[in-house]
């Protein structure tokens, strides 16, 4: 019984290894076209690249642009979300404008920003900040609007001050929504940063991927994509961890622990 559970638990890793091995075999036997190198070759290329300046600078720039834009996007999203949440007039007034902007993916603005700023990091930062504003904005708004009226009344009956109401009622009600918003925003920000780097040759890992693709250095291209994917996984994991820490009291997390 015990051995079986061990086997079951390692099943995801066994499957993953099997898929990687299959890819390796298919690539080595020439079933896959030679623009798809075997997995070991990709990893070896990545390993060789790890300590190089090109790799580290690119990675640093990508992460920097990502972090700045996400911070800006979260800030703007929370402020705007609260504003349209507490003032229905503002919500009514800005509705169509916000909706137009939200449904236009921010990569659309690449040309105009390239024109105004040139192919430099601010282009990526601005666009990713805009792109990550919308999920945070709308989640904050839903959170603020959705605060249960019973809770609000209870707070008033207990004579909580305005600050206490915000601290013990509004923030806990909004934060689960905000957490979801931030997770979506982070994914958007990374997608946009990479897109700008690839399309406009703004410095960063995205540009390096495109460089290797154009010069036919495919193992390196795939190695960098692997790195970007792992970065995506780490960001997701960190945000989930943070969410669990901050929202351990929330129903959806209590169930999981039980």
């Amino acid at each position, binding site marked *: 019984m015990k051995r079986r559970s061990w086997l079951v638990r390692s099943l995801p890793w066994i499957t993953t290894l099997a898929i990687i091995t299959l890819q390796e075999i298919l690539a080595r036997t020439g079933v896959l076209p030679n623009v798809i190198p075997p997995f070991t070759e990709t990893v070896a290329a990545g390993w060789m690249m790890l300590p190089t300046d090109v790799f580290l600078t690119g990675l640093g720039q990508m992460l920097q642009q990502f972090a700045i834009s996400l911070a800006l996007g979260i800030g703007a999203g929370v402020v705007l979300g609260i504003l349209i949440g507490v003032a229905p007039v503002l919500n009514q007034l800005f509705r169509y404008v916000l909706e137009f902007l939200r449904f236009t993916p921010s990569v659309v603005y690449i*040309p105009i920003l390239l024109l105004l700023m040139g192919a430099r990091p601010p282009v990526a930062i601005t666009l990713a900040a805009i792109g990550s504003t919308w999920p945070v904005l709308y989640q904050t708004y839903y959170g603020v609007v959705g605060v249960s009226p019973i809770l609000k009344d209870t707070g008033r009956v207990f004579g909580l001050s305005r600050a206490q109401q915000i601290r013990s009622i509004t923030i806990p009600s909004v934060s689960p929504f905000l957490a979801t918003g931030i997770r979506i925003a982070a994914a958007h920000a990374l997608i946009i940063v990479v897109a700008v780097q690839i399309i406009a040759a703004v410095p960063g890992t995205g540009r390096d991927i495109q460089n290797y693709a154009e010069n036919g250095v495919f193992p390196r291209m795939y190695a960098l*994509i692997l790195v970007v994917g792992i970065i995506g996984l780490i960001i997701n994991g960190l945000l989930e961890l943070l969410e669990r820490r901050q929202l351990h009291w929330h129903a959806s997390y209590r169930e999981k622990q039980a």
Partner: protein
Amino acid sequence: MTTTTATTESTTTEATRRRGSPRFSGTIVSLILPVVILITWWFVSANSTSPFFPPLQLILQTFVEAWLSARVMSDIVPSLTRLVVGFLIAVVVGVSLGALLGRLRIAAYALNPVLQFFRSLPATSLIPVAVVLFGIGDTPKIVLIAFVSSFPILLNTIDGVRNIDPVIEDVSRSFRLTKMQRLRWVQLHAASPQVISGMRIALSLAFVVMVSSEMLGATNGMGYVTLLAQQGFQITLMWSGLILLGLIGLLVNGIFILVERKLLHWYTQNQED
């Protein structure tokens, strides 16, 4: 968490709509700002000599001349075809694989690391790969759009199919529904709110990938023309391209919301009780 988002969204919009004054006057208030912006843009830019900010009148003229003629067939239709075909493939693959994996728990569990990796991988980093593998025609774009947008649908379908109320399952079994009937009328139906919220994520992803892949390796399409216009310093054409892409984004999402409302009518109604 995705489901919470979807449900709260629909209920709050319903609630605000009913709480506010009659819908008509609300719409008028919402129209004020867009109209003010357009009028201001029109008059402020009217005498503009700045090469970057041409008069709105010129932009709109270019919009009509450039986009509402030959480019409909040469650029707008190809772009939309890529988007729609890619998205539909993702829906079919995502829903059917998701329903399968949602039933075969062990398979979903075994494939989890691979699925999570591709879900977390920023979709746009695969654009160079698509160009390397399939060149610069329609195929790389459709394949890429289909590939990246199938993951949110797939993962949401797995979740949705899995979290069905066991009582409903028992009832449908005691009514002796066949496996196919149960899949179609019970499991997929119960999972549909989550499936559709996955589709919504997939659609925005598909749009981003469509535009960016046309900006990188393409010979036509709205993204291609808009970026090329900037590089060729045809600034009015570039602005008109931006407006077009904005309008198309609005249109595509609008259609999706209409379909969603129709499909999930029963769901939003239940939520209101």
